[in-house]
């Protein structure tokens, strides 16, 4: 089952496309990392997946073909929006009770235990908590709903490095316990490299690449060899990035199982190299006919 499936999905704000022609299928289980620079269309994609934004074109379904925003989808998906919005005039206990009343399932004892662990007082107004604490409250509330899919929009940006680790540890524990799937967006890949199973790279409103991280790393190779021969190979291979020095050429190619040309040296690439190569790849620049996408807060 795919937790999110999109087909030619696009969203236009005024004249600019925040997301364009995005077709992907995020498989169930594990953590899918949605990465890309600011303004890449990450929030737009997530907001469409939870039904807060209506697509301009294309389709999006969740949890194996359910309509976005349908009762079945809302029931099984928890969403933590960017900046973790909470009702600032409500106490933490009221936020828990509020969420309990708005959902069929809510694990009150889990939520209380986790907040106690984090030393977040239940009687404090949400607005009086620090940004990091508000993010923790929002995550606790989302997890206590026992969702099948948890969607987190830039959850780490408000947290200090220590809190980031705690946050991710909580998410990973819940995944292991409940078999929950997670889609998490970030503009920084480094924190996700070790925990993500699936990678989606967005740049300039376009899907650059998506796939299982193990497969992606296995499929891509950095080939280094004489620049003179580079053109011939480049025409034959699927080149993601082509860097030439005076005599040396470095080709990042997607060539699962293809033999390495004689006289060339092949080495594996890191996830970060891969992501940067796809973000910089000339072939995947925003379409000229359609204007430059821009991040627009939904």
């Amino acid at each position: 089952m795919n937790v999110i499936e999109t087909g030619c999905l696009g969203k236009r704000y005024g004249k600019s496309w925040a997301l364009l022609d995005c077709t992907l299928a995020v498989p169930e289980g594990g953590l899918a990392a949605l990465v890309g620079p600011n303004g890449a269309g990450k929030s737009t994609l997530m907001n469409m997946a939870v039904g807060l934004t209506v697509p301009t074109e294309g389709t999006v379904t969740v949890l194996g073909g359910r309509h976005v925003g349908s009762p079945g989808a809302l029931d099984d998906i928890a969403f933590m929006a960017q900046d973790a919005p909470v009702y600032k005039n409500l106490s933490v206990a009221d936020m828990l009770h509020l969420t309990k009343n708005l959902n069929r399932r809510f694990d009150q004892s889990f939520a209380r235990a986790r907040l106690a662990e984090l030393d977040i007082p239940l009687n404090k107004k949400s607005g009086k908590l620090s940004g990091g604490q508000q993010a923790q409250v929002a995550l606790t509330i989302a997890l206590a709903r026992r969702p099948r899919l948890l969607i987190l929009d830039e959850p780490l940006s408000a947290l200090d490095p220590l809190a980031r680790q705690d946050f991710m540890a909580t998410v990973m524990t819940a995944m292991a316990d409940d078999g929950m799937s997670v889609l998490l967006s970030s503009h920084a890949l480094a924190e996700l490299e070790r925990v993500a199973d699936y990678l989606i790279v967005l740049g300039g409103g376009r899907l650059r690449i998506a796939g299982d991280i193990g497969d992606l790393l296995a499929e891509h190779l950095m080939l280094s060899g004489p620049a003179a021969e580079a053109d011939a190979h480049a025409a034959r291979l699927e080149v993601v990035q082509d860097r030439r020095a005076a005599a040396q050429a470095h080709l990042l190619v997607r060539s699962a199982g293809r033999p390495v040309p004689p006289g060339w040296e092949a080495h594996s690439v890191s996830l970060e190299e891969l992501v940067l190569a796809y973000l910089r790849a000339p072939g995947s620049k925003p379409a000229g006919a359609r204007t430059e996408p821009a991040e627009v807060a939904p």
Partner: protein
Amino acid sequence: MTVLTLPAQPGQDAGHAVRPVPWRRMIWVTWAQHRAMLIGLTAVLGAVAIFLFAMGLYVHHNFSALMACRPQASPACQALNSSFNSTDWTIANTLDILMNLAPALIGAFTGAAVMARELETGTFRYAWTQGIGRVRWTIAKLVLLGVAIAILTWALSQVFTWFFAPFLQQQDTLTVLSATVFDTRGIAFAAWCLMSFTVGAFLGMLLRRVIAAMAATLGVYLGLAVVTWVCLRQDYPVALVTSNASLFNYAINRQSGAGGGSFPSTAPNNSPWVLSTWNVGRTVWWRYIPVSRFWPMQFIEGGWLLVLSVLLIAATVWLVRRRAA
């Protein structure tokens, strides 16, 4: 190929047809989110009601002293009369004007923030992704708050009606059908407040800014109230036609521009609202609304305001459903 004829597996689709979150849960949710507003509104209306009650005792006392005063032509009685018609009436007239403005303020301060605050602070991203769904969330909230506001404002209007009663007897130009009196009594006041609240909620959803929605709510209420005074109310299907001049023997009908009709300047307080007169031969015909039509007019006005409120709630829900960032 028996597989093809097997019925669809139940359970495969179970996730799609979940039992919805019950409506009654929204009672606590609405209370939790809007208790400050509800408590504030109750406190303000309660304070006004207490003030009206105290003033009412004073006014009723003065009025019974005036009514009991004999002989009426004596200087003492004349002094009471002029005091009642100046001091007391000034207070009552001011309060009456404030009562006529109150629905606009109530709508602006209670309605405008209900939806717009969620959009301003981004909390709609939380609220609209919960299991209950945004349609139930919106309908339940607006209906519950609307009912609460209607009940509270109805209670206030009853206190005001009692407070104002002596002036309807004493002020020659006022009847229960007068524009500024009609709206403060019966069910009209509560209906106007309810309508104003739903206007605020709708405009908050439309404009997405609390302050802008408040300003727009004031404008829309005043516009609609004036249109109702000037154009609508005289056309409620309650008017009568007669050539029996004895009903109007006190009056030289003076047409005033705005209302399309006028109250004869020396009419007693049960005098009908004369809409128009015309001559057929030597007979004078009158088109008028007697004060006995007060309740039919109240139900007509309350009715269309209620229908408008329901439509505004429906329009708000429609905006919530289709809201595309």
